[in-house]
C-alpha cells in the first residue's frame, strides 16, 4: 500500500531538481526541444492514465489508444472551420466524450478477464480505428487539419497564446501536474484503495462485499477520460489528427512506457514516457528501421528486466525514486 506522506529528503531533492529542470527547460534550448518535451509530457499523461488501469486496478488494456484518439478527434471535429475553437469549451468536451466512450466500451469488456480482456480491448480499439479510418464521419485516412489552434479566451481576456510553443509547453506541464496530483489523491481515497485491492486479490474483494464490476468500470472510464485529455493536447500541439493515433501501435507503445518506468508507480509512468521517447529518438537517429531496435529492446527488457527502470533503481538504492514499491 502506498505509504502516506513522508518522502525522505533525498527523494524530495531529486524530485525538486527534476521539476526545476522541467520548469526552466524552455529557456535553455531551441523550440525543437521545447516541442519535443511537450510531446513527452503529453505521452506522460497518456501513460499515467493507463497506469491507473494497469498498475493500480490490474486491468491490462491493449486498446487504450482508442480513447486518446477520441480526445484528439473531439478537437478535430468540434473545431469550426473558419475560426479558432474555444479551449475552455472543447477541452472539457473532449475529456467527457472520451470518458463516455470508455464507459461504453467498458460495459462490454469488463465482463471478461485476463487474456480475454486484453483481446477484446484490442478488438474494440480496432473498431474505433475503423470508424475514423473508413467512414465519412472520421474524414478518412487523411485525418483532419486544424486551421487554427484553439484560443484560451475567457470573455475579453486571453491568458495565454496556444500558437506559441512555450505557452503550450507550460500549459501541458500544468496539465501533467494536475493529472498526477489528481491520481495521487484518487489512489489514496477509499475508491482508489478499493481499486488496488482489486488488483491485489479480486476474488477476496468480491468475498468482502465489493461490487467489483462497478469499480472496474469506473476505473476504466476515468482512465479513458484522462487518455482523452492527452489526445486533445496532442491534437492541440500538432494541429493535426489522423487515425494512426488510435492504432494498436499506440496502445502497445503506451504499455511499453509503463514497463519501462515500472508498472504501478505514478513516477514510473512519467519516467517511462521520457525513456520511451528517448529510445525512439535514439533509434530513429541510428536507422530508418528503428522499430527493429525498439522491438528487440522490448524483448530483451521483458526477459531480463521485467520490473522496468524502477527495479534498476531498486538495485542501487534501497528505495525507489519517489514512491516506495509495496510488492
Amino acid at each position, binding site marked *: 500500500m502506498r505509504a*502516506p506522506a513522508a518522502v525522505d529528503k533525498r527523494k524530495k531533492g531529486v524530485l525538486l531538481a527534476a521539476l526545476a529542470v522541467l520548469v526552466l527547460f524552455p529557456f535553455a534550448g531551441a523550440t525543437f526541444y521545447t516541442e519535443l518535451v511537450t510531446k513527452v509530457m503529453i505521452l506522460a499523461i497518456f501513460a499515467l492514465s493507463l497506469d491507473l488501469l494497469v498498475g493500480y486496478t490490474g486491468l491490462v488494456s491493449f486498446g487504450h489508444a482508442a480513447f486518446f484518439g477520441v480526445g484528439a478527434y473531439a478537437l478535430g471535429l468540434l473545431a469550426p472551420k473558419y475560426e479558432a475553437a474555444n479551449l475552455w469549451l472543447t477541452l472539457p468536451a473532449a475529456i467527457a466524450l472520451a470518458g463516455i466512450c470508455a464507459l461504453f466500451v467498458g460495459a462490454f469488456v469488463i465482463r471478461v478477464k485476463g487474456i480475454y480482456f486484453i483481446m477484446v480491448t484490442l478488438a474494440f480499439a480496432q473498431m474505433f480505428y475503423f470508424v475514423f479510418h473508413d467512414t465519412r464521419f472520421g474524414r478518412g485516412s487523411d485525418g483532419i487539419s486544424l486551421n487554427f489552434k484553439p484560443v484560451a479566451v475567457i470573455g475579453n481576456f486571453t491568458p495565454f497564446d496556444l500558437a506559441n510553443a512555450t505557452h503550450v509547453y507550460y500549459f501541458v506541464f500544468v496539465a501533467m501536474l494536475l493529472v498526477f496530483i489528481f491520481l495521487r*489523491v484518487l489512489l*489514496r481515497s477509499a475508491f482508489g484503495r478499493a481499486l488496488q485491492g482489486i488488483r491485489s*486479490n479480486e476474488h*477476496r474483494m468480491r*468475498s*468482502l*462485499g465489493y461490487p467489483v464490476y462497478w469499480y472496474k468500470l469506473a476505473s476504466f472510464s476515468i482512465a479513458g477520460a484522462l487518455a482523452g485529455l492527452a489526445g486533445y493536447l496532442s491534437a492541440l500541439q500538432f494541429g493535426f489528427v489522423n487515425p494512426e493515433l488510435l492504432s494498436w501501435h499506440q496502445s502497445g507503445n503506451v504499455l511499453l512506457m509503463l514497463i519501462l518506468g515500472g508498472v504501478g508507480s505514478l513516477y514510473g509512468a512519467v519516467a517511462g514516457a521520457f525513456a520511451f521517447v528517448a529510445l525512439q529518438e535514439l533509434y530513429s537517429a541510428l536507422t530508418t528501421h528503428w522499430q527493429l531496435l525498439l522491438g528487440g529492446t522490448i524483448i530483451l527488457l521483458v526477459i531480463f528486466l521485467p520490473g522496468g527502470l524502477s527495479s534498476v533503481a531498486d538495485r542501487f538504492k534501497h528505495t525507489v525514486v519517489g514512491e516506495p514499491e*509495496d510488492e
Partner: protein
Amino acid sequence: MSDAVLSTQGLSRRFGGLMAASSVAIELHRGRLHAVLGPNGAGKTTLINLLSGDLPATAGSISYKGEDITRYSADRRSRIGIGRSYQKTNIFPGFTAFENCRLAAQSRAPRLLHVFADAERYRPVCEAALRALDAAGLAAQRDRVASALSHGEQRQLEIAMVLATAPEVLLLDEPLAGMGAEEAQRMVALLQKLAPAHAILLVEHDMDAVFAVADVITVMVNGQVLESGAPAQIRASPAVRRAYLGEDDAAAAGRRDAS
C-alpha cells in the same frame, strides 16, 4: 430457541457426473457454533463455497433471515451479513495487516463519492479495522506487510478480515489449518468468544478443537449429510465412527473413550 439465521434445503452441487454436495440440509442459529466434519472429499469445502456464493448451486435453496439468497452473488451475500474465511490463506499479500482489515471494514462504508479524502483519515473504518485486528490477536502486527507474517499470523489475519466486515454469519473454512498448539488454543478461545454474537459454521479437521467448541456437529461423507446432532451424540454414533475413522480405529477410539 432462536430461529435459523441461515438454512438450506436440498442443496446440491453437481460437477458432470460427480455429486460434490447432495441434498444438504443445514441450519445456522445465532449463538450456536455448528461444526462440519468429514473425511477428505466429503464435500465440506463445497458446502462452504455454496453458502458463501463462491460456487453456484445446481439444485436446492438457501435462505437467509427468511430471504431466498440462492441466486445471490458472493459480494451481495457478504453485504447482507454472511462472512467467510478461506482454508487457503486469501489475503492481500502486499498490504500491511492494518490495510488488509481496513479494506475489509471499508466494504461496509464504501464512500464511493469521497474520492478526494484520504481513506486513512476516516476514523470509523480505521477503528473497526483495529478492533478486528485486536480481536484476532494481531494488534502488535498492524504495520507489518501481510506477506511477511508467519503462517499462523496470516491465518489470524484471515479471521480478522472477516470480523472487520461485522457479519452475522461466519463461515470458517479450517481456520486452524497449519497452526501450532499454542496458536490453535488462541484461535479456539477466539471462536468461543465469537460464538454468542454470531451464527458460526466451522469446517475443521482438528477434532479436539471441534469437540471443545461445537454446539452442533454435522458429519458429511461423499457429499451427503451422514448424521447431525450434539457432540456427545456424534461421538457415540457407530455410523460416524465407521465412516470417518474406519472399523479398527472406531474400536480403538471406543477403548480410548472408556479410559
